[in-house]
């Protein structure tokens, strides 16, 4: 009876409202707005994630780590926020196929959007506001730049979107649906808030606290207040303020009680000085902290606190809401555009690293050839690895750009070196497996285990002749989702004695490992210098390894080593002609740099190289006599002679190593 009366009353109110409107106005179907926002956001996210940053996203998963063992689960969950980290690490794997990972991530964000819209009863026209935190998370994925190398999170991409979704799910005011009175509902909500904070802080970290805060807010917004109670003054602000304060105090008390309990358990880990911050991403490296990179996470955590208030936004005029929507969309795109780390070398390095690991030498050289500006030293090293594998180190290394720059920096925060990037991969490909293991292990220690380091450690163990050690890493890789195939393909080299020479991944590293000399020392983080110095002093009879030694001596411009290696090259290849750049270097050394005591009569020079050398020297002298400075001469000679040893020596005066 009561319900019927209510319905009649509602119908009458609706009718009255309807009569007030001008009849000619056709109502805009607002319900399509959130659908439109979703589609626009999905397109934008796809563009930034997949079109622009597929290589970064692949890289992030490759430096992540998840496996199906109980041990991994236990390790993750030994700190607050651990369950989220475990789940995030699992999903991050799917960026192995960047399109799949991107689609999943976007779907998760859209689910978050729709859930928030439903939970907080956000009006269709204002629902675009819910996309702000997820856009912030999108920004967090594309702004990293060189931080990708030193991220400690194996779950970076998915952890926070999952956290946000979990917080929304946990704060769903299910008590609204219960057939009980308002007071009882408020008691349930209060108890739920405490439970969420107490029970879910350990699995979800800071997102459990977000869920608790959102619960506090939905507590006062029970949606059943009488007209009197719902007045802004009495039922709204005062009630909400009081509940937020009391709820926050309760949370604080709870955590203070909870923290020592967890710590004294002895098997869990929680820093007593920052118990609240687990699950929040800090960009901290030693003394440095980059707050600018943390902004998206602050937005993702703080903005949802406003969701319940968005639920109160209602407007008759779409102009206001859609005007603001356009402003927000423009700001969002501008922000994403500005924060997207588009440095060419940064992306090229990641592609080259992957290509080197997969022995796609043409792709490595293709990347090296595409670069127009100065390159990083890592790119030079990766390119040289490809050249070594193709037997072209001494005949092609100067045909690519050797002009070097430091890796670009992100927000003036970190300065990355090769040893932080792919030192292990580079060492491995030069046959320096022990140094590769050392760097891989240090990386694991600093930034956690990853598929990349596990593969690297497995390969090093195989080349080193440590089968049991290799088996350990392969066993773990076989418990992952996408690395299993790699592990299975590699296992025969351990179990069945499949010859390593038959596989491109092992062929050259093994050869250089066998020919390299045994020394004891350290690299002091100078990866390139360590490799070059070791090889330029290595005297070997193996023609392939000797070319590496000769190339290193030539590139390091060490006369004594260079001529020793030239002699050794002749000794083991008396009938062969010297590679192009070696001929250029010999001519330049003897005739331009006046190296004495060298007898070139035994060298069969290519006439074209001799002519080119002469032409270079003539031009050089001609430009110098015209009063041009070094830079101008370098620029003028580059189109014709930029691919020669002479140009490199004359223009790039200092040997650049890292």
């Amino acid at each position, binding site marked *: 009876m009561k319900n019927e009366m209510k319905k009649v009353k509602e119908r009458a109110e609706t009718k009255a409202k309807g009569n007030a409107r001008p009849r000619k106005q056709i109502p805009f179907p607002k319900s399509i707005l959130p659908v439109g926002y979703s589609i626009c956001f999905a397109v934008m996210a796809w563009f930034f994630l997949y079109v622009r940053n597929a290589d970064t996203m692949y890289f992030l998963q490759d430096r992540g780590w998840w496996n199906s063992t109980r041990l991994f689960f236990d390790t993750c969950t030994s700190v607050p926020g651990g369950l989220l980290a475990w789940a995030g690490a699992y999903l991050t794997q799917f960026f192995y196929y960047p399109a799949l990972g991107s689609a999943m991530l976007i779907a998760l964000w859209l689910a978050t959007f729709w859930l928030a819209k439903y939970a907080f009863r956000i009006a269709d026209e204002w629902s675009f506001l819910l996309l702000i935190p997820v856009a912030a998370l999108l920004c967090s994925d594309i702004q990293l730049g060189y931080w990708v190398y030193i991220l400690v999170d194996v779950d970076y991409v998915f952890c926070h979107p999952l956290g946000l979704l979990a917080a929304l799910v946990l704060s769903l005011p299910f008590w609204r649906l219960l057939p009980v009175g308002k007071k009882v509902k408020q008691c349930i909500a209060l108890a739920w808030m405490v439970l969420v904070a107490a029970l879910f802080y350990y699995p979800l970290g800071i997102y459990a606290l977000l869920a608790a805060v959102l619960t506090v807010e939905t507590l006062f917004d029970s949606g059943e207040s009488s007209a009197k109670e719902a007045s802004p003054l009495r039922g709204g602000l005062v009630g909400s303020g009081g509940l937020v304060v009391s709820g926050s105090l309760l949370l604080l008390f709870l955590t203070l009680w909870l923290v020592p309990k967890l710590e004294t358990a*002895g098997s869990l880990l929680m820093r007593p000085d920052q118990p609240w911050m687990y699950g929040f991403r800090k960009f*901290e490296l030693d003394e440095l902290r980059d707050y600018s990179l943390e902004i998206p996470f602050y937005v993702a955590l703080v903005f949802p606190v406003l969701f319940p208030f968005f639920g109160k936004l209602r407007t008759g005029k779409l102009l206001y809401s859609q005007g603001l929507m356009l402003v927000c969309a423009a700001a969002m795109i501008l922000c994403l555009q500005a924060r997207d780390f588009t440095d060419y070398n940064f992306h090229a390095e990641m592609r080259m690293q992957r290509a080197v690991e997969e022995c796609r030498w043409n792709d490595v050289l293709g990347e090296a050839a595409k670069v127009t500006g100065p390159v990083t030293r890592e790119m030079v090293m990766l390119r040289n690895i490809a050249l070594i594998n193709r037997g072209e180190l001494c005949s092609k290394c100067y045909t690519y750009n050797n002009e070097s720059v430091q890796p670009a920096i992100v927000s003036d925060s970190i300065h990355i070196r090769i040893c932080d990037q792919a030192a292990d991969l580079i060492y491995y490909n030069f046959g320096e497996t*022990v140094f590769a293991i050392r760097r891989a292990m*240090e990386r*694991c*220690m600093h930034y956690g285990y990853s598929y990349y380091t596990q593969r690297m450690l497995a390969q090093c163990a195989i080349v080193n002749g440590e089968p049991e050690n290799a088996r*350990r890493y392969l066993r773990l890789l076989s418990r992952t989702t996408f690395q299993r195939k790699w592990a299975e393909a590699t296992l025969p080299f351990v179990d069945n004695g499949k010859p390593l020479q038959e596989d491109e991944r092992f062929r050259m590293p093994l050869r250089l490992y066998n020919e390299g000399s*045994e020394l004891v020392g350290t690299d002091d983080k100078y990866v390139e210098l360590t490799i070059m110095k070791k090889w330029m002093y290595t005297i070997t009879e193996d023609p392939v390894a000797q070319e590496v030694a000769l190339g290193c001596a030539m590139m390091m411009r060490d006369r004594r080593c260079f001529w020793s290696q030239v002699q050794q090259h002749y000794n083991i290849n008396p009938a062969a002609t010297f590679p192009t750049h070696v001929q250029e270097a010999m001519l330049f050394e003897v005739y331009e740099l006046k190296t004495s005591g060298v007898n070139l009569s035994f060298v069969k020079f290519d006439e074209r190289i001799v002519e080119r050398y002469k032409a270079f020297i003539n031009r050089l002298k001609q430009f110098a006599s015209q009063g041009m400075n070094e830079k101008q001469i370098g620029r003028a000679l580059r189109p014709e002679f930029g691919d020669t040893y002479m140009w490199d020596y004359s223009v790039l005066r200092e040997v650049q190593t890292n």
Partner: protein
Amino acid sequence: MTYKTYMTFLPLLVLFLLAACGKPSLPTSYTQVNAEPDIWPDYRGVTVPPNIAPLNFLVDSVEDVVAQIRPQQGEQMVCGGKANKVQIDEEEWHEMLASSRGGSLSVTVYTRQGGKWQAYKPFAIHVAEEEVDPYVSYRVLPPTFVGFDELSIRQRNLTSFEETTIYNNRLITEGLEGQCINCHSYQNYRTDNMMFHMRMQHPGTMIVSDGELIFVNLKTEGMISAAAYNSWHPSLPIIAFSTDHTMQSFHTRDVTKVEVMESASDIVIYDVKQNRVQVVLCDSAEMELFPSWSPDGKWLYYCSAHYKYKDKYEDTDELLQQYKTLQYSLYRLSFDAASMTFGQPELIYDAVGKNRSAVQPRVSQDGRYVLFAEGPWGLFHIWHPTADILMLDMQAGQLVDTSPMNSQLAESYPSFSSNDRWVLFESRRDDGNYTRTYLAYFDRKGRLHKPFEVPQRDPEFFRLFLRSWSRPELMKEPVRITPRQFRDKALTEPVKVN
């Protein structure tokens, strides 16, 4: 769900639960294999203490495995049935061990491959009369070289699988500038007097003295460095330390991977109650290391390498060239507790004469045996694949046969249990890289038996665990100071020695 639906599924659910809880049974038909099974860890023929946790194991490449464990007297136990793992019920295991002291268990393994069962020849697990100290503590760290981001000292109850943290460096530090924690040790296997060092961040030595926690800066003027390798006097509040400069370098090809060297080292003692340091040995041509008290407190054992720098003292470049000549022999000094004075060095084992290097001496409770690690050179033998554990019989003046407990790969850091019947040591025999903890029975006739890896709840644990368990120490009781208490103390200013 309706009531009817519930009633339909309930019996099925009950049946499922019953099936899940059911014990595995032995296969009725199988093929007999005339060989022992390949199990991991290898517990075949080992001798175990009667208080050890269940020796869970696995068999590779099988679909199912069941083990029948039969004591010489009493009821047999059938376990397994969890894919390729045999995980034994703790309670039943302990009952069986208790009834088998001095006897042995016979284990028959059945495996299923391609749907067919096979039965292997039974193997024995011998149960000693003597128990092992119930706790072991160790450092847990990746086999890394320089970084200290993630380090903890943990303790494990050997009679069960309970493991807790004594201290974790992540309670204070995160990131590259970590905190190195090392050299935990105890007085007489008890934890009321114990210590460990902290380096880098908040450096100092954490000492528990009669249950009271103190934090000390042991570096004094004239000492080479802060205190390092140590040993508690068995009855006095005195700790002997070596003080040294450590350096390490990397091989380019050798699987040894790294060489750790001391460019200088001396030995001092620290009086915990008086807060005073006294120099014991400081010869610049001798590198004295790893002090270790005899259980009667009358002798201080140590190792020393003779080395004279050619031009400059502590010329690390020179040392790097000569690292293979840095070999240690074992010595001891007599100690007079009344006057706190030491006698003259006495050579007890000339490893250098054998072109070897002996380090980390530990003396048995009866003073008769000295355990130590021997390798080709240097002091960090866990990195030397040829390093072994040796035992010197001081009474007979000869080495005990330790071959049953050594392997083709590195062994290091040996120690006796408090009743002398168990030798605890670390080894990289699994794969050459990750250090694991082993126990070997040392019987009353002076014979060593095949060692066994400290058992884990999940037998696959050590295969998957990418951390080393290093520097194991047996204890009679767990450390009671909580990680939080250690942390809070570490944040205070360390006390300087007088």
